[in-house]
């Protein structure tokens, strides 16, 4: 007996013990925050303070919400949250609140600690349905607990420049120790492993739990273009270093790469990869490309002008008709023009024919094989049928 579709459906229902009513249910999925504009902000975002024994301090915070009726919960998180209290526990639609910080006499663990001051939207689970969206924003109070004795950290930053221009350094020294430090910072300039110059800062005292920002300029009049490394150092009984690399540029655009193979026939694209060694932008960079046969110019074309950002590497391209070329290798003269300067390279470019004939032969072979296969299968069935009859 042929089993109908109904049999399978009934069997399926029976198997999964489904009731008709269960198959039909209304499922409303609404992802709705219930508010017109789901935004929440808190300021100030960051406060940084130095630890003092038994410090009592108050900080004012401001909250703004996209919904004037939104209930907001205020909270503190982190290992020092117990030392924080608020003048209120919740807000409606935004407003201000006061954070009172009451630190203990001593904190053993030195370093930078974060106290999170957060505001979170309250969600009324009884309202609406589906998936609600809630935002929490958290500001941070960074508490710097000093290290015992002497301890300092430094950071060094530098700008790139063109050879002959000044390079500006910024050195930040943070004294995270309990003692004041008498320092004589220096910056050493290296080219690869070779020290070229040393810059000296004035001697100065950096008080405990303070930071200072120093600046210094390097005159690069006698420097060659290239990459350099600056290493800043302070010595307070322990040597602390910070490193920053910088580049000195020159008005030069290098030709890095180009299209090595071109198909013969029709309009073809020729790409050139170029890189700027200049610390400023260069406008209207273009290439003039000529293909040569011995010393005779077969064809030449210009690429559209391009603007280069400082140190930028990019591709430029031009188009030409390769119909009159024969298969083989040709010399190509690529000259870049920019800001009154030029860069030049003579390269080899291969012109090749498209493999259209090869593809045609391949298709014919495949077709032949398919036909042969069909013929053999039919033949096999005939033979087999004859054998079985016997």
């Amino acid at each position, binding site marked *: 007996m042929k089993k109908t579709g109904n049999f399978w459906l009934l069997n399926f229902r029976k198997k999964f013990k*489904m009731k008709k009513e269960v198959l039909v249910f209304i499922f409303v*999925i609404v992802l709705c925050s219930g508010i017109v504009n789901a935004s929440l902000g808190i300021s100030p975002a960051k406060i940084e303070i130095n630890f003092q024994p038994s410090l009592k301090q108050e900080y004012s915070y401001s909250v703004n919400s996209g919904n004037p009726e939104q209930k907001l919960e205020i909270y503190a998180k982190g290992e020092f949250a117990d030392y924080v209290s608020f003048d209120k526990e919740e807000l409606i639609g935004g407003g201000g609140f006061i954070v009172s910080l009451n630190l203990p006499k001593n904190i053993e663990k030195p370093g930078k600690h974060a106290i999170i001051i957060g505001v979170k939207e309250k969600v009324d689970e009884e309202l609406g349905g589906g*998936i*609600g969206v809630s935002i*929490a924003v958290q500001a941070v109070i960074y508490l710097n607990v000093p290290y015992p004795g002497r301890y300092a950290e430094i950071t060094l930053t530098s700008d790139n420049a063109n050879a002959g221009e000044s390079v500006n350094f910024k050195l930040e020294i943070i004294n995270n120790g309990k003692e004041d430090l008498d320092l004589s910072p220096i910056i050493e300039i290296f080219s690869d492993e070779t020290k070229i110059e040393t810059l000296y800062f004035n001697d100065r005292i950096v008080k405990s739990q303070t930071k200072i920002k120093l600046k210094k300029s390097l005159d690069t009049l006698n420097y060659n273009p290239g990459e350099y490394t600056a290493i800043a150092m302070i010595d307070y009984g322990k040597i602390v270093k910070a490193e920053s690399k910088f580049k000195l540029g020159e008005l030069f655009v290098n030709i890095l790469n180009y299209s090595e193979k071109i198909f013969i026939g029709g309009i073809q694209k020729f790409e050139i990869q170029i890189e700027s060694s200049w610390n400023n932008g260069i406008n209207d960079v273009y290439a003039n490309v000529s293909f040569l046969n011995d010393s005779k110019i077969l064809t030449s074309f210009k690429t559209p002008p391009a603007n280069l950002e400082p140190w930028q590497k990019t591709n430029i391209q031009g188009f030409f008709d390769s119909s009159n070329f024969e298969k083989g290798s040709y010399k190509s003269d690529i000259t870049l023009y920019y800001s009154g300067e030029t860069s030049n390279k003579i390269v080899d470019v291969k012109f090749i024919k498209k493999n259209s004939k090869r593809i045609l032969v391949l298709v014919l072979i495949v077709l032949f094989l398919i036909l042969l296969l069909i013929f053999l299968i039919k033949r096999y069935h005939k033979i087999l049928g004859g054998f079985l009859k016997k």
Partner: protein
Amino acid sequence: MKKVNLFLIITVVAVLVAFLNLSVFIYKIGKITGHAADTGVANLTVEAEVNVNFTTDSIEWGSGKVTAGQTSATLNTADNSATNITNGNWTGNTAGLVLRNIGNVNVSLTLQAGKAAAAFVGGTSPDYEWNISDTNLSGSCKESNVALGEFFDVNSTGPSAIICNPLGFDNAIDSIRIDIKLVIPYDSTTGVLTDTITATATAV
């Protein structure tokens, strides 16, 4: 005559007041010789603020049901094709949720759902996943502890996963998209189902 006299008096007084005002003004800004008589200092403090906004904060699929004879239906906001609803008759939705950093500091962003699939949808083999992706070609999320652009189970327990660190505030790199995929089995929980996704942004 009296009216003319009154008018004249008022005019004279007005001119005197104007002259006095001008004198005070000139005195305050110093002599007009090209040399500053004093140094003025303009102080301006711009406060840093953490502020994030769900620019798209709702996804509506309307009402529907699992197609008769099917074991489950799938609803997927990341699927732009006609198959973003399979085995069900809900209204398709391809918008997703979009969260944007509209403050002026970078933030570290975490997400947490209130429930896992079993508690939210119920039934046999339900699924509740989200897919976090950059909405900007230049990449809003420089670093993430989750695989961006892929669906994975929502995080409803334990520490929230860091989705972006940082999520920048520059307009070109300040937003992410959250897509939701639900698998609703034929024997799912019925009635009003509720969950809350909490996005937490912390100043970095």
